């Protein structure tokens, strides 16, 4: 029997080793697996390589992971924000290595990893500083830059509903990197708002099929206190 439900975020992340590459879903707060990140902080793994669009906002989530000095390298497209002070401090202190990647190239490199693609040519960044030192090629009338996939040991993502096979649905723009990160990691852990019985998800509405998901943790949404 397949049962990917795990009782707690802590149990779902217990085996993350030091030095792991961890993809973290989300774009800003939408789709950010906050409770999984908290569990990763509590778990204590260090020297992590983190893949995320940003480099943390304010003091929670990824920002807290960086603040706790667990991240040695971050691969992202948009680290600098008005509230990225934990990243800014670690970066300026030389404690954190940054690989800056255009957002579409980041997404496609993640997608390529999950899809078994060895490398791909993209027109993005040709002739810019972010393509320096990279192989380029003219194909037809355009110039392209060779980019390689980003594989991960773990992906931490937030979805909306899941069944015990790990099939996932998402909610609005919280989908963002979830589906491609799920496919790119050896072990994908999804936190979801609701778990449902097998058969309750219409196969037409499944966005991430369970084949890409190893563990599912239900996190009860916070209720606003009046």
């Amino acid at each position, binding site marked *: 029997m397949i049962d990917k439900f795990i009782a707690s975020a802590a149990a779902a992340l217990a085996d993350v080793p030091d030095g792991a590459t961890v993809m973290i879903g989300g774009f800003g707060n*939408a*789709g950010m697996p906050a409770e999984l990140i908290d569990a990763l902080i509590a778990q204590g793994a260090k020297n992590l390589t983190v893949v995320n669009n940003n480099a943390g906002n304010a003091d929670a989530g990824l920002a807290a992971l960086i603040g706790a000095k667990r991240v040695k390298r971050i691969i992202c497209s948009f680290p600098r924000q008005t509230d990225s002070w934990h990243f800014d401090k670690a970066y300026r202190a030389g404690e954190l290595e940054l690989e800056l990647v255009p957002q579409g190239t980041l997404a496609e490199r993640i997608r390529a990893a999950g899809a078994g693609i060895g490398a791909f040519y993209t027109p*993005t960044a040709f002739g810019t500083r972010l393509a320096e030192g990279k192989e380029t090629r003219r194909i037809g009338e355009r110039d392209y830059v060779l980019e390689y996939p980003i594989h991960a040991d773990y992906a931490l993502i937030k979805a909306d509903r899941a069944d015990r096979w790990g099939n996932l649905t998402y909610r609005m723009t919280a989908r*963002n990197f979830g589906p491609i990160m799920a496919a790119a990691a050896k072990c994908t852990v999804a936190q979801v708002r609701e778990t449902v019985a097998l058969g309750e998800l219409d196969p037409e509405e499944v966005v991430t099929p369970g084949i890409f998901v190893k563990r599912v943790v239900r996190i009860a949404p916070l209720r606003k206190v009046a």
Partner: protein
Amino acid sequence: MKKLDRNQIAARVARDIPDGAYVNLGIGLPTLVADHLPKDREIVLHSENGVLGIGPRPAKGMEDEDLINAGKEPVTMLKGGAFFHHADSFGMIRGRHLDYCVLGAFQVSVAGDLANWHTGTPDAIPAVGGAMDLAVGAKNVLVMMEHLTKEGKSKIVERCTYPLTGARCVNRVYTDLAVIDVKPDGLHVVDIVEGLSFEELQRLSGVPLRRLATAA
């Protein structure tokens, strides 16, 4: 001379976006364009974080943290809107499916090179986001910026001194002084604000401009 304010530049950009267009508005100044799109045109707004068919800002108290734009501001959905993941979203951009994108800029060169992501100062923390993908991907790349820096220097330059976002990618520039097309044979002035002569615009810009027959 009457310089255009930010909203007037945005309105001027909006005027040029036709019915049926798929459009991405960059973070910051370009976001203002949404407020000026003519109501009688169906224009579908795209955002990098996986959404087509963005509607107006939600009323206070109606925000949903799962429904945001690339600037991470709360938005609403129009009827007909759709959600998709990030790789599909950038496939739309890179795959030349977007009709227009509107971007801010530090500098635009005579050849249409765009610099908008990095000031080039060594201690600056770089952040690129989706700008480089939009610059190479949209069918029409529109730039919206002030014509001059605070020091009075032209932001339209012979060669960009800031790091490039994209080479030869800009189609049209909207500033507080003029609308200028970037063409293979140079810069063509489409519009000039009231009270500014072509000669004066030429002097302020410091790069060769061509006069369109329709320009003042």
